[in-house]
């Protein structure tokens, strides 16, 4: 698998925090716009269409799992 899901940051909390702080004070709509720009910037930096596709697959799979969970909880 070319997509790395190992923990690559020396301090993962710093990375998470940087993203959180980038969104602080933004409206929900502005946050979504920021995320879209961020995704395109990072995708370009990676520059590997195979990795990008694997990342999309992983992200989508997690979304499906989560929505299934929610449906189960509602039942």
């Amino acid at each position, binding site marked *: 698998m070319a997509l790395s899901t*190992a923990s690559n940051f020396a301090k*993962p909390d710093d990375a*998470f925090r940087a993203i*959180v702080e980038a969104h602080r004070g933004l409206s929900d709509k502005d946050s979504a716009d920021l995320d879209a720009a961020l995704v395109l910037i990072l995708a370009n930096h990676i520059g590997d269409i195979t990795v990008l596709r694997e990342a999309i697959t992983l992200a989508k799979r997690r979304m499906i*799992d*989560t929505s299934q969970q929610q449906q189960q909880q509602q039942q």
Partner: protein
Amino acid sequence: MVQTNPGQGASPAKVQFGYIRHGDQDHAAPVAHAVVVVGAGPVGLSFAIDLAQRGHAVVVLDDADRIGEGSRAICFSKRSLDYWDRLGVGDRMVEKGVVWNVGRIFHGPSELYQFDLLPEPGHKRPAFINLQQFYAEAYLVDRVSALPSISLRWRNKVTALEQRNDGAVLTIETPDGPYRLSAQYVIACDGARSSLRSMVGAGFSGKVFEDQFLIADVKMTAAFPTERWFWFDPPFHAGRSALLHRQPDDVWRIDLQLTPDCDPQVEKKPENVRPRIARMLGHDKFEFEWISLYKFQCRRMERFIHGRVIFAGDSAHQVSPFGARGANSGLEDAENLSWKLDRVLRGTSPSDLLETYHIERSAAADENIRESTRATDFMAPVSAQEARLRKAVLALAKETEFGKRMVNGGRLSVPSVYETPLSTADAEAWASGPCPGTSLLDAPLKAADGRHLHLTDAFNAEGRRFTVLSFANGTAVDAPGEVGVIRIGGDGFADAEGFAGQRYGAEPGTAYLLRPDGYVAARFRHPTRETIAAAVARAAGLN
């Protein structure tokens, strides 16, 4: 902050102390003392013991006459246990405490991951013990009574402070009326609601978290392992977080996140707490020891030193509890300050040395505040976007390593690394080992007579002074006279399991200079008497 003590199941360890009139109260003019500590909590008591062991007389004042009430710390770190070993109370704490190293994080009904805070062998003390704060305080008070140079005075409430150039005068209210004391230094360990802090006119600003947290200590027999269990969105407490942690005497700490808008007066009623806990445990066979409802705050004083008043512990900095960074950082304050004040009182270092207490410990407070703020933010996201980010991390944590590492259920207290003018920069290349500004790493040793001990014991036995840790290369290290020496290899201690050499990246001749608080001040591949003396002088604030 709202808290309540339902007063049920009072523990035998909660001790009442009597007020005793002191001869100082018979004098119209304030009697002069070198050091007065305000506040007989874990920090004030530990500091007083430390300074007394270093040969000073200390007065400790406390406005209460009992321990065992109010907010309670339960997690004491390895670093705190090392310190308490040096104060002669470590064994008693560990004997009574519940030892733990492992934490587990759950999301919904399933376990996300587990972590081991001390995954390597060869340490005298575990990563943590859990121990009710009133036990810790009771053991410290016992130790104080064995030290005649400490005068511990209950129901002595400081009501006024007057700063002078060479000290401070305190007005103290007692059941017999007021009296005054003068002190060269006043150490304010009087907690988050410090009255000394108001008396020096200092602010205490920071961040208040909106979510309320319910903390309950319940007594029950249960088969849960001795681990820290943390849940995001558990089935028994949907949408919020929960923590379960074992204490001695079959007491369990339970911490439940509530909504920002719930009514604390209603929520803290035992009859309303009981069903919440019963849902979590799956039964209601438990008794309440203590119930409390909090909004957490993260804040610190801008300066820890105000004239002759020095602040330590919660009076100087306050954090949310996720990470066990409150009491543990206060104990680090105490150890950092005591050796410096000892030298200043003796005149062997200039009073400027105390400024490095502020430099080192305020940076540590910033780090603790940063870590506990991040953990609390992760538990209680403040916006829809933050909630989405957290949801993504929790979802990704199921199958990815990076996701697990980003889940933040509290990053537990480890000693800070100081960037400090007291350190001497490395002159050689080091691939491993603790850099200057780092707390010493423990390792098992063996004495010439076959006795097993740890490096922390050897450091303690050297008298908690500047000490050179030397890895033998045939000849003994040439250390200045007032400096202690721990020699490993040759005719010194044997590196019983090879851990000391490994952990310190040692080569023959390697030497570390340890400060009296066990922090690395300098390290050398080829030490000489001159380079060691220069590093001691720097670490003692002499240049």
